[in-house]
């Protein structure tokens, strides 16, 4: 009896849960469906649930007739470079902030938190002027620098809490055994910190991949334009809103991320929780 109740309860839970999950994922489904509809079917009223005619013309046009691939390459380069630089610097910084005593440590930690408040719009023009005087305007690297403004405080904050979660005894034991401070960092801390680093890297990558405002203002050449502004620019002209093409671009822009994150998802959840809860 209780067992039957348990099974029934389980079925109800599953049905309810999956209804919500499918509801949340519906836009994903609709994005794919729309991207496969030919133009004339798109403006059918009422809309067709599944495409009557499946076409890949929008994907072909996207790859062949638009700079989509250039934007894609730019986004990959940009996000990867930002992630590597930011996570590298933040790891060292977090280590210093957590495990060393020096003048100004508390002030720095506060500053990190404070820079968190800065809206991007404030920094744009000063940053742009600075980048131009460095001769970096309109390059992917200029966006890497701009993205550091929001990615570095975030990465530092995350890594600091991960770092605080690693027992100090381990490092002390290694030091007693005669390891140098940097040697202990390399051999003891880094392996322990790896889930945290992966997690931070993933979040940094997502932030960079999704950024829109800096890219809108700082870059105006297709050679350096990332996907976010590229897709908006490429497809929304005042003449025509090509929803099928937009949805095809959206799919192409999202699928690689989803595949990667489907594999790293457990890392993401485990690592994030283990670190961030320490505040």
């Amino acid at each position, binding site marked *: 009896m209780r067992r039957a109740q348990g099974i029934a309860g389980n079925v109800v839970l599953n049905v309810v849960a999956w209804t919500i999950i499918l509801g949340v994922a519906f836009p994903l489904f609709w994005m794919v469906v729309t991207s496969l509809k030919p133009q004339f079917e798109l403006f059918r009223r009422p809309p067709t649930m599944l495409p009557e005619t499946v076409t890949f013309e929008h994907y072909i046009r996207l790859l062949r007739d638009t700079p989509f691939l250039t934007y894609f390459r730019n986004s990959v380069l940009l996000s990867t470079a930002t992630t590597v630089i930011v996570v590298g610097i933040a790891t060292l910084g977090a280590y210093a902030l957590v495990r060393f005593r020096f003048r100004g440590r508390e002030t720095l930690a506060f500053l990190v938190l404070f820079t968190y408040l800065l809206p991007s719009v404030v920094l744009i023009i000063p940053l742009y002027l600075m980048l131009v005087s460095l001769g970096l305007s309109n390059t992917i690297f200029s966006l890497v620098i701009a993205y550091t403004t929001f990615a570095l405080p975030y990465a530092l904050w995350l890594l600091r809490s991960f770092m605080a979660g690693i027992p100090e005894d381990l490092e002390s034991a290694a030091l007693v055994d005669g390891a140098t401070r940097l040697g202990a960092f390399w051999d003891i801390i880094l392996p322990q910190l790896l889930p945290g680093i992966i997690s931070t890297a993933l979040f940094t990558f997502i932030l960079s991949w999704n950024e829109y405002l800096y890219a809108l203002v700082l870059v105006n050449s*297709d050679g350096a334009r990332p996907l976010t502004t590229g897709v908006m620019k490429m497809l929304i002209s*005042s*003449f025509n809103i090509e929803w099928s093409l937009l949805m095809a671009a959206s799919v192409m822009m999202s699928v690689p991320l989803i595949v990667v994150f489907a594999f790293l998802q457990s890392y993401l959840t485990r690592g994030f929780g283990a670190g961030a809860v320490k505040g």
Partner: protein
Amino acid sequence: MAAYQFQIAAFEAVTPGVKVVFETTSDEGYAPQLAAAFASGEVPDIVTHLPSFAVQTDYANGLLEPFDDVIAAIGADEFYPGANDVYRAADGKYCGTGIGNSAANMLWVRRDLMQAAGIDTTPETWDELRAACQAMQTGGLFGAPLPYGQNSMTSLIFIGFIHQAGGQVFTPDLQVAIDNDGTRAALEFYRSMRELCPPGATTYSWGESLTAFVSGATATGIYTGRVLANVRDQNPALADQITCATYPRLSTDIAPWTFNDFPSVFIPAQSKQKDAAKAFAAFLFDPEGYIQQLHAAPGHVLPVLQSISANPIYQDNDIIRKCGPEVDLMAASAAGGFNLGYESAGHQSNAKAGEVIGSNAIADLVQKVIINGDNVDQALGETAAAIDAIMKA
């Protein structure tokens, strides 16, 4: 795009040593991009397709090179009479020139729907238009795709309505005069049209408005000749049913007012290669390349040079052949068109027009009165104050 590539290749072929790099931008993106570029001194050598009032603004701030040399190189007589008046700046020089004309507020109608509703003639007055829309609005079909969004289309189109009721935004010597009977009549009419427009018209801009008509969701449209090409490509069933006219007015006593944003070409003052830029600007009007440019969107961009209109190569295009009367009407309307920087032949050139449009003050007026239901007097007062502040800043 392809037409530009052709022009660039041709120009590079005749002027060795000059390399033209082509960058594109978007309606929403160009303002911050150019602002950042001007601020830094890293400017493009030549810019095209900005509305004339934006060009006037930049010229007034000393950011642009006078364009007289280029106009002379093309041949001042080649242009339609008065075509460059809109570019004459306060100092008597020209700040740029039009790369094409456009008639942005043409009334597009469906002959089949008018016939089914028993309407014989294309509406010429607002009352006729409203009655026609009411007659044609059934089930899922709406009367008109007028924009009520907080964007430049709403501002630009509504300025047209003000003039179609005999009103004006500025006096000829550029005092703010938007609070007048014409504006009030326009607001009243625009409000009465709300229920004849799709629910989402509150966010419509050019693209949505155009698509609504082309897809057959509305009985009338308001757009440039781009409609012709889009119908051919996206909904060919309508191709034989559509025609256009100048947009209706409050009464037939008032002259039609066609909005032409004069997509422009100009040269930033900080350009490091002015001579090459000027040569290239003039080259853009070389018939072979220029006609390709116009054919990229037949009926949308209309020639600014008289000699081109008559050129048989220009005439040799399926849409221009098929819709000759429509294209001729648009060309004539656009050549006699106006915009906020140039409200009438008697108005001084308004260097702040770009900022007035950019502030969305006029779109705000439409939204306040029609969507929020605010008091008209108060909303007009606020709008007048907002525009006045921009003029005095």
